[in-house]
């Protein structure tokens, strides 16, 4: 779990983008930890959300994740 969380944060910090689909995160984590399962990655994302490290970004129809304080603010534009 801690290892997956670390991989998520590293990916979110190093990526050029500021918003990620869950699938982007999943792929990035599995590159580092090939046997990480989608369910575990989701749990790690939820934990990071609850810790306040990650935040959700929602358009209403789809949802993305972002690193708190990096690039995305409350303003949608």
């Amino acid at each position: 779990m801690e290892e997956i969380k670390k991989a998520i944060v590293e990916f979110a910090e190093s990526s050029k983008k500021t918003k990620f689909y869950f699938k982007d995160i999943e792929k990035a984590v599995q590159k580092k930890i090939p046997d990480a399962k989608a369910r575990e990655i989701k749990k790690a994302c939820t934990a990071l959300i609850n810790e306040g490290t990650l935040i959700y970004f929602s358009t209403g129809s789809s949802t993305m994740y972002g690193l708190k304080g990096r690039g995305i603010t409350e303003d949608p534009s």
Partner: protein
Amino acid sequence: MAFEPKEPQKEIKYQELRIYSDEELNNYTEEELKQFKIKHDIPDVEELEKGPWPSFVADAKREALRRRKLADDRMLIDRDVVEDMLGQLQLSFDDGETHWKHGGIVGVFGYGGGVIGRYSDVPEKFPSITAFHTLRVNQPASKFYNTDFLRSLCDLWEYRGSGLLNMHGSTGDIILLGTTTEQLEPIFYELTHELQQDLGGSGSNLRTPSCCIGKARCEFACIDTQDLCYELTTYYQDELHRPAFPYKFKFKIDGCPNGCVASIARADMSFIGTWRDEIRIDQEAVKAYMAGEIEPNAGAHKGRDWGKFDIQKEVIDLCPAQCMELDNGELKINNQECVRCMHCINVMPRALKPGKDTGVTILCGAKAPILEGAQMSTMIVPFMKAEPPYDNIKEFIEKVWEWWMEEGKNRERLGELIQRFGLPKFLEVVGLPPAPQMVKIPRENPYIFWKEEDVPGGWDRDIKDYRARHKR
């Protein structure tokens, strides 16, 4: 089995939760309403009041007037929000484009859905709606409320929001339209702690499941739609609130093929109650219908004189499966051929009833035309029992999700994924044999690809044996 909430539910009493007095709730007269002008000129918006139907514009003006007259400390967001909302709508008519900015990071803590960020892109003109977020509230199964609940909800929303709401959005949720970012957490707290109602789904997650009225009032219900809806809602809380799907996913549940929530057209996974034994026939009642003693369709079409009820013309000849006949005054049904269209049962509900061995048909893949064209769900599971705790249904759901989460592209609905891979692949994923009922149109793809395990002997052959018979 009777409906059993998982936690004891407290009784919601408006007298304990109310925020406004009767005087505050009735704080203007109809005369005042007639004289009332909002602070913006909205000629095109007012056109919408002129048709024969009730208009949200008329309702919004009432709300604007009430807010004008409430005391300052009786509303926690700007009193002008309704007037500014109407003003901005007029500006959109003038410009032919929307002035709402959509989306963002607003939400309540830990939830990835239920709040949809909305901002005005002309806040200098309409300052009160600079932030005007929408909340989706998970409606109770079949939308049963009592007035204590509704009044408490409306008071809460008047106090902490715009007072504008929509019963119900097309997903089924109660839609609370317009509040500021600061009010989101307090509203969420009161909704969950006082009103015992959760937020619904939005974004890339399981959307709020919804169902028809089912066994609560409808004798056609083949399954307990409310129980299944409640079970799926509570069991899949994580999927509802913490988005990790490629895109949205909807469950809708109809108690019978009449399809009152139109699950076949509106859900990624549609559950439709059905039966696998025989339509129950009460021959005496059939005779009573034929003799004109019982009104067909329970009197639903009696506004006009259709002449004497003719069972041959109105029922038997209209059976899409042509599987009914009258034999010496006895109605016979060849149930093998019946397609469960419900027509005969709808016309003669006192004579015909769905069978007793009931369950669900599960269909997958309906969607609106956003990325690809619109489509209806395709029948995947012809029949499955639907009884608590619904383990068989959950097992099916999870197989589908696993595949979609693995293979689905960002923003690809299940129906589009099935189209991309083909139905045979999907059937393989869920482990079901193809059935004729899945075929919508005659085959249009001329190719058949055999799998090695389907071919006797597989791909290997004895080349010497072959060459003994075929020269190079």
